[in-house]
């Protein structure tokens, strides 16, 4: 391999690919070859950088210049100016808060500066298709260490010491979970990676699998060694074709190097790893449903106990962790549990990856130490609310999470603190909402999702979520009854109490938390037939302020429903019965005479 | 029954139902178990699901074939050759249980000699089964460790029926698959109380418990117990012989209890002639059946739900039958009628209850000696159960066979061509049998819900043959043998191989037995229902 003076890293994650990063990659390769610079500059396709909305992202090393929204058309300039002449192409660099005076190094950008990347440490930095690059970043060193210097018990102890807890949402101490499975008798055991990330808006697992798949595999190898398993599955949703492709390549490479297969590193430890593609069922993120799905059955959960550690896949002791959990393990083994435990809060150690979305300036993946406040994430890393609007709430924990208010902004995030206020860590979805979001509508949105994904096995989830959705639908339509709130609270509490699996046990959270913190909005919908945020169409009214109206007829002309009448130069009127609430009139009005209420 | 009797010393099913679940290999031959014995079929499928191996041998593609590890579709009537071929492979490869043979079986050399001829190639030629399948079946069966054989009428209803059974017995002895749970040769009885009727001596040559009528001691003991005079010494005629004798006019009178030979017996036209030829026919039944209509006197009997008594199932287990409802009108339980009829003959019978009768059975039948209604009310028991404190015998031949020297014997048999074989004039092979929804002559099942579900005769025919005959599903087919003709709706299915048709025999108005020949197995006198040469036409 020759020596390259410069490496140009292009994000090959799903986000950037859909914004056209493949074309950029091609253009770069072609352009460099034409200039005869392909021997001195290497172009590398990497995993996700986390800042997908700014994609396609290109980073030029050794300077660490971070370019965003690069198109194929920008490439000649990039080559000529930066790569040939060493002059930064200022118009393409990331502009942070609008100051472009100095060109920040990648790591100096506020979005990244506050982060502490352990799970994501290689994402966007190495070529995920190259096992050598992973090894160059100390990859598989933890495996060698474990197999040559540590007993399985010692590996579990190290994970226990680290305080790592399940990153898929449950937050169960990983080391303890491993010790259960390790203790369970059986000649055959399985380790499983849950990569069935299904929360709308969450993509941390996808990024990890696409950006650093070897870390996940190494984590599983360590777990398998610690628990005495010799076979593993990665259950990945079929909607992540790139992740699956990368994983297949990863398994091939690791097998070639003898890091998977028989007698790994010449020891007695053998491990076989399979990939299973999901088939489109959110509930398969639940571990017993996931196992049923691997077995080829309907992905319906079953009650625990017996726990998978005793009776899991095909009745054999099994251990399931999610992608992020596994990805943390190699660093923990390499650097020691103490190192990991030094980060985070008393009970929630280490870092957590969040998918920051919604009405925030910088959306994307952020990895921060536990104990970071929501304020830091939303306002410092995320750059605050879009368009200078007012922060209203943050929905945390995915569709099963809860909505928190500005009063919770300074809560240091940890499993405990979140559950205290009715939310959950979940897999790490963080949706920021501003004053234009109706909380009833938001609750309804999430419930629509969980209701549609209910497997139908247990009555509380099957019948209960449907009934809650029915009630929310009618509240949003202005047909709510005063007793509905009580019914929602009762149903929500009981569904949580009686449902079979995590999906049902958490599905009411968005409703219950919004009822708790935004009850006035519900009451406005029911009692005043009014949506304070103006989001629920059926409760929204467009009214022409007769004092302001100049009678220009523009509104009447754009109205698709012919609901606006009025003579030229006379104030116009909207017939509320005919109005379809499209808002076209308000947009068209030159004097802002139309109010949305 | 005879085949097993002479080989093992007892003709009954060797193992109980629990034993099925302990089998590692299930060898099902000539038994469409899921249709004829659905509950046993469900256990076989359960075993298979839990990892047991399944060998299915049947010319038809039956439901169990779907689950078979080894599925053999041999030519109808080639069973002896098939089993000999399997044994050939076992002996060739030394897979037999020599210790078991040495210790417990006689006549091994004779078997070796016969079986030697049946190389897989030769067997394949006779049976139409690829040699590899024969080899695989042999290896699978011999590997066990516990292999059980199940068969039904597909084995016995041939002219060579007894030889078929003997061959299966040879196979099980060869591999020592006997006397342990999960092994054995298990004939699944077609009717609810075949075992009991035999046990009770409703056979021409034995009293209850297979005590031979030609034994002077036995007769003496019986006449003692029954307090009667001399009992007839020479074995009587079998059912088929009686029918023949009636046809010839040698038999003048027949008393038929609960049977409908006009539907169930072979060669219906011949049966009709025989019954018409009788001087005096008495039929005791619950319906005015096709046979009852020909009777001089018809006696109305109580049915299953209307009387007390016992049945003995296919595993020799004696079970209680209890009265649930009153019989209609003046209909009476068969045992009551028989008691009164005997009195009309002048005999001093005085049975007050079925329980009374059972006590009399126990008194004269050693294997039933320890049984009584009282004991059976607590739960069924398998015979032999000689004394009141005996726990019954779920598995036979544990350690010792029932023959005089305690040893079993090999009964090697050569394969013989069936009595009738398709030819130019009658190119199809017809086979008859039961279907799930019906029972026997259909007099009960056709008057119940299943009768509404399957109303009429259908004839299974292979798609290739149907195409050649230009016949579509549901079109009428006419089937003719040397004895008669029936018509039924075509059911086109690859369950039957080409040039074979299958007809259920439950439908009197389109009686499959119009086709069958009254040809019987010379040993057991079982009719050869499974093979008739026929021609098939579009009706």
């Amino acid at each position, binding site marked *: 391999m020759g020596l390259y003076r410069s490496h140009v890293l292009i994000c090959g994650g799903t986000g950037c690919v859909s914004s056209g990063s493949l074309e950029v990659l091609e253009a770069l390769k072609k352009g460099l070859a034409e200039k005869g610079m392909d021997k001195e500059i290497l172009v590398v396709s990497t995993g996700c950088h986390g800042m997908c909305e700014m994609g396609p992202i290109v980073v030029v090393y050794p300077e660490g210049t971070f370019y965003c929204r690069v198109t194929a058309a920008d490439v000649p300039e990039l080559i000529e100016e930066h790569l040939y002449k060493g002059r930064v192409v200022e118009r393409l660099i990331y502009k942070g808060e609008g100051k472009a005076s100095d060109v920040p190094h990648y790591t100096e950008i506020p979005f990244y500066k506050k982060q502490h990347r352990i799970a994501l440490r290689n994402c966007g930095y190495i070529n995920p298709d190259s096992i050598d690059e992973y090894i160059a970043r100390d990859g598989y060193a933890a495996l060698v260490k474990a197999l040559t210097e540590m007993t399985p018990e010692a590996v579990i102890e190290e994970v226990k010491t680290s305080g790592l807890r399940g990153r898929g949402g449950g937050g169960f101490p990983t080391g303890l979970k491993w010790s259960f499975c390790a203790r369970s008798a059986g000649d055959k055991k399985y380790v499983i990676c849950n990569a069935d990330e299904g929360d709308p808006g969450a993509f941390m697992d996808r990024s990890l699998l696409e950006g650093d798949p070897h870390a996940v595999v190494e984590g599983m190898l360590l777990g398998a060694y610690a628990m005495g398993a010799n076979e593993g599955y990665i259950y990945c949703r*079929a909607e992540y074709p790139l992740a699956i492709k990368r994983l297949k390549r990863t398994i091939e490479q690791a097998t070639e190097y003898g890091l998977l297969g028989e007698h790994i590193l010449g020891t007695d430890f053998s491990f076989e790893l399979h990939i*299973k*593609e*999901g*088939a*489109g*069922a959110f509930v398969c993120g639940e571990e017993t449903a996931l196992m049923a*799905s*691997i*077995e*080829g*059955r*309907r*992905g*319906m959960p079953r009650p625990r106990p017996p726990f998978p550690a005793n009776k899991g896949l*095909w009745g054999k002791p099994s251990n399931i962790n999610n992608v992020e959990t596994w990805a943390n393990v190699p660093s923990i083994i390499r650097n020691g549990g103490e190192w990991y435990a030094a980060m985070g809060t008393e009970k929630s150690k280490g870092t957590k990856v969040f998918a920051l979305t919604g009405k925030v300036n910088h959306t994307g993946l952020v990895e921060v130490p536990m104990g970071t406040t929501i304020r830091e994430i939303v306002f410092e890393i995320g750059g605050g609310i879009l368009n200078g609007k007012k922060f209203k709430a943050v929905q945390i924990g995915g569709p099963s999470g809860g909505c928190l208010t500005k009063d919770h902004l300074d809560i240091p995030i940890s499993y405990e603190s979140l559950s205290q206020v009715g939310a959950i860590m979940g897999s790490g979805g963080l949706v920021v909402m501003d004053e234009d979001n109706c909380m009833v509508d938001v609750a309804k949105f999430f419930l629509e999702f969980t209701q549609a994904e209910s*497997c139908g096995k247990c009555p509380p989830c099957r019948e209960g979520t449907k009934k809650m959705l029915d009630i929310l639908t009618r509240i949003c339509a202005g047909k709510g009854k005063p007793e509905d709130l009580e019914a929602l609270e009762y149903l929500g509490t009981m569904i949580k109490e009686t449902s079979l699996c995590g999906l049902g046990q958490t599905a009411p959270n968005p409703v219950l938390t919004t009822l708790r913190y935004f009850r006035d909005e519900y009451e406005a919908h029911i009692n005043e037939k009014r949506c304070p945020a103006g989001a629920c*169409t059926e409760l929204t009214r467009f009214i022409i302020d007769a004092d302001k109206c100049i009678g220009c007829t523009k509104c009447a002309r754009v109205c*698709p*429903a012919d609901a606006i009448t009025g003579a030229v130069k006379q104030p116009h009127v909207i017939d509320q019965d005919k109005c*379809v*609430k*499209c808002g*076209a009139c308000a947009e068209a009005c030159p004097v802002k005479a139309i109010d949305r209420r | 029954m005879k085949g097993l009797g002479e080989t093992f010393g007892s003709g009954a099913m060797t193992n109980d139902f629990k034993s099925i679940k302990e089998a590692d290999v299930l060898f099902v031959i000539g038994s469409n178990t899921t249709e004829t014995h659905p509950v046993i079929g469900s256990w076989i499928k359960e075993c298979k699901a839990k990892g047991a191996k399944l060998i299915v041998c049947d010319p038809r593609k039956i439901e169990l074939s*779907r*689950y078979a590890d080894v599925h053999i579709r041999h030519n109808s009537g080639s069973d002896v050759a098939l089993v000999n071929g399997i044994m050939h492979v076992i002996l060739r490869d030394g897979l037999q249980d020599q210790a078991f043979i040495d210790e417990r079986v006689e006549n091994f050399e004779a078997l070796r000699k016969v079986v030697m001829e049946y190389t897989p190639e030769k067997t394949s030629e006779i049976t139409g089964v690829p040699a590899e399948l024969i080899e695989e079946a042999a290896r699978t069966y011999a590997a066990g460790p516990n292999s059980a054989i199940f068969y039904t009428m597909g084995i016995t209803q041939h002219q060579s029926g007894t030889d078929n059974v003997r061959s299966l017995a040879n196979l099980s002895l060869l591999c020592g698959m006997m006397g342990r749970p999960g092994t054995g040769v298990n004939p699944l009885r077609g009717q609810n109380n075949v075992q009991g009727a035999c046990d009770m001596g409703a056979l021409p040559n034995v009293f209850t418990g297979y005590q031979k009528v030609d034994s002077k001691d036995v007769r003496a003991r019986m006449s003692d117990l029954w307090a009667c005079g001399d009992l007839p010494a020479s074995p009587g005629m079998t059912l088929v012989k009686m029918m023949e004798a009636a046809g010839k006019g040698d038999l003048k009178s027949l008393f038929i209890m609960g049977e409908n030979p006009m539907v169930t017996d072979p060669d219906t036209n011949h049966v009709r002639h025989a019954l018409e030829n009788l001087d005096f026919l008495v039929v005791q039944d619950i319906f005015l059946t096709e046979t009852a209509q020909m009777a001089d006197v018809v006696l109305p009997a109580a049915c299953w739900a209307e009387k007390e008594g016992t049945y003995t199932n296919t595993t020799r287990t004696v079970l209680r039958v209890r009265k649930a409802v009153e019989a209609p009108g003046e209909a009476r339980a068969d045992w009551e009628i028989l008691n009164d009829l005997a009195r009309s003959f002048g005999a001093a019978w005085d049975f007050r209850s079925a329980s009374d009768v059972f006590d009399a059975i126990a008194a004269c039948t050693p294997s039933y000696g320890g049984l009584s209604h009282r004991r059976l009310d607590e739960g069924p028991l398998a015979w032999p159960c000689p004394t009141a404190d005996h726990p019954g015998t779920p598995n036979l031949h544990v350690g010792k066979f029932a023959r005089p020297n305690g040893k079993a014997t090999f009964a090697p048999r050569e394969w013989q061509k069936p009595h009738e074989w398709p030819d130019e004039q009658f190119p199809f092979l017809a086979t008859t049998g039961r279907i799930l929804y019906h029972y026997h002559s259909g007099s009960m099942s056709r008057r119940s819900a299943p009768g509404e579900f399957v109303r009429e005769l259908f004839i299974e025919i292979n798609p290739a043959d149907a195409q050649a005959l230009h016949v579509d599903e549901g079109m009428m087919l006419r089937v003719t043998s040397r004895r008669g003709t029936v018509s039924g709706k075509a059911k086109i299915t690859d369950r039957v191989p080409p040039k074979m048709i299958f007809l259920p025999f439950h439908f009197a108005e389109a009686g499959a037995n119009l086709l069958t020949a009254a040809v019987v197995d010379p040993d057991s006198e079982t009719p050869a229902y499974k093979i008739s040469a026929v021609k098939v036409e579009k009706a």
Partner: protein
Amino acid sequence: MTTTQEEVLSKVREIVSPWKDKKGGLIPILQQAQHEFGYLPPEVVQAISDEMLIPLAEIYGVATFYAQFHLKPRGRHVVRVCRGTACHVRGSLKILEKLKETLHVTDNGTTEDLRFTLEPVACLGACGLAPVMTIDEQTFGRVRPEMLGDILGKFE
């Protein structure tokens, strides 16, 4: 595309063969079969049932549980028309009606030549471009009925 029974059977045999002696093959088999046939036709499901000895009811139970599987033929291209509020008020119904008329299909129907499947969807999340439709991965915004001919023409 017509496929004979034998072709179906041999294809299915090929698909199931890696799973014959392995556990957990049903979902990958169905995925592969759907990939092969475009959807899961009854004869294919029956053949899978016969080959794998998995009860038909169980296979359908699995196939109807997961969103990925389709029991009816799907077109080579999936046309999604947004029926969200924003699109509705800007005439998406007219787009939908015109498509139905042009393609001779009903909602969620597939053209006879299996070229297109038409799916009205709740919202495509591109309200700024209303009315919106997508064909496969491509998004078309501010669609007018008279544009449909050209748009459909791009997809064979």
